């Protein structure tokens, strides 16, 4: 058993998932003297430790094997289990991405320890890693801990923390000893990167967000035009994911994406908590709503009381 705080570094192809870097910075801030260790599984042609190093973990443990180009969840969990159980760190953080939310519970089951999903904050109180997550969809947060089992595991929501580079950090790089076990009966046939036209809303610098009050073809077309002119993306509240035009991928909020744009324009969004938790890290927030008492105004820098349509028409007209 050791007292280190480990962070799993996810790779998307050969690129490091940004949430992992955010978690290394966060881990350094909360570690209270515990070593911060990045755990990385990559194929022989990838050198993600070069990127990870810049964020200043104390150590990077690298699992190298050519099967890591396209591993199954089970294979990844098995390989990580060998290294994690040989060290039993104090804490182990995963990004709450699709991969993190699939592999972490499988690993948890092997370790027979606790795992808290989709945390918005983590910090130490003595030896306990306090894991803060929203629950019951409503206005409710809970603090979960895992007093008697190690590691204390959590997946943490993307874009909740900033990643910060560290200059001149002394990073030890260790190659892990493990054996890759291929999983029977399952095979990843192909993995195709999603081309960035459907770029991730979570990374967009400008977001035009549509809610139920903007759910008509005319307004949607105007919003798309405005987003294109501004160089931004269109996002939606949950009810609009029922519109065939949109999918879960562009949903903002608790069960969608956390976004952190410099500018967010909300149109016809009431401002339910499940929506607003997803926009807490936005820079300037502009909201348009016909109801001057809509809760969205309480989290906005600029408010316009009126219809989404009239506002968008004026906006599309005004931006060059």
């Amino acid at each position, binding site marked *: 058993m050791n007292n280190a705080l480990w962070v799993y570094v996810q790779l998307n192809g050969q690129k490091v998932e940004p949430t992992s870097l955010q978690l290394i910075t966060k881990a350094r801030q909360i570690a209270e003297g515990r070593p911060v260790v990045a755990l990385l599984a990559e194929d022989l042609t990838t050198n993600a430790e070069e990127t990870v190093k810049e964020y200043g973990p104390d150590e990077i443990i690298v699992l190298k094997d050519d099967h890591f180009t396209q591993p199954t969840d089970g294979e990844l969990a098995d390989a990580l289990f060998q290294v994690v159980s040989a060290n039993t760190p104090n804490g182990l953080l995963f990004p709450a991405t699709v991969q993190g939310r699939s592999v972490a519970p499988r690993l948890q089951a092997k370790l027979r320890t606790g795992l808290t999903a989709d945390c918005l904050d983590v910090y130490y109180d003595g030896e306990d890693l306090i894991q803060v997550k929203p629950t019951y969809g409503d206005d409710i947060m809970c603090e*979960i801990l895992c007093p008697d089992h190690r590691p204390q595991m959590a997946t943490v929501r993307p874009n909740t923390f900033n990643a910060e580079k560290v200059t001149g950090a002394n990073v030890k790089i260790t190659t892990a000893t493990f054996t890759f076990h291929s999983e029977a009966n399952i095979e990843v046939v192909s993995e195709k990167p999603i081309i960035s036209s459907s770029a991730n809303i979570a990374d967009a610098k400008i977001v035009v967000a549509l809610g139920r009050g903007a759910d008509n073809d005319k307004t949607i077309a105007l919003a798309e035009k405005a987003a294109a002119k501004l160089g931004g993306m269109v996002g939606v509240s949950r009810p609009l994911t029922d519109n065939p035009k949109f999918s879960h991928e562009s949903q903002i909020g608790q069960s969608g994406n956390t976004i952190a744009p410099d500018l967010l324009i909300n149109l016809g969004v009431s401002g339910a908590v499940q929506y607003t938790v997803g926009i807490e890290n936005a820079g300037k927030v502009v909201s348009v709503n016909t109801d001057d008492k809509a809760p969205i105004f309480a989290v906005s820098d600029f408010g316009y009381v009126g219809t989404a349509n009239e506002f968008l028409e004026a906006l599309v007209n005004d931006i060059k």
Partner: protein
Amino acid sequence: MKIVVCIKQVPVGAVKIDPETHNLVRSNVEGDINPYDRNAIEAAIQLKEQAGGEVILLSMGPDSYISSLRDGLAMGADSAVLLSSRAFGGADTLATAYTLAAGIKKIGNVDLILFGRQSVDADTGQVGPIVAEDLAIPQITFAENIELHDHNVLVVKRLLDSAVQEVKVTLPAVVSVRAELNQPRYENPLNIQTSFEKSVTIWSEKDLDLDNSQIGQAGSPTVVRKVYAPDKATKQMEQLPTHASKAVTQLLSELNN
């Protein structure tokens, strides 16, 4: 094909914190099937329509969950099993999955176990992968398309964070499904009627092969320390003029500063 669909009942309506006692109060004690689990039931029925076989619903929870199991039967599932006992109470995802896995072993010869992507109350999506590990079979999470090849091979499309993956699995396996997979069918009057003739079996820990230290609260490594309503950060908002074009002009000039 023998398919088990794990379904959870979730509270309908808002859940609030009592300002005095700091306990959760459910404004409405009624429950409904976790919406994503309806997608899992739909996927199961479609596979049965293609391959034949049976669809069994499985849930762990109090007896009040029977109403959701009946709803799932009314969608077209064949039978249901409820794992119900005081001893299962207070379970976190690890203990819940352990108990469900024991139920699946008792059902026996299951080819496919389907889950919703996550429950809307606990919101973890962990139970499916833990069950897969406990049964030592492959998992495919976040499925958004499922094709049946041969009688025991599935090709599943899975949307990752920045890639689309195609995964081929020979059953038995665990698959958890996204809402994009399908449109769950409505319960029709005939199915509602026949749902009351279908069997709902209840098993307690005595019926299952279990290690009692792994179930309920004892088998749950996590502890909820505190539940609270967060203080919402509010901003100082500037109200824009009522005239839309004036509003936009003012906004753009202030944003550019």
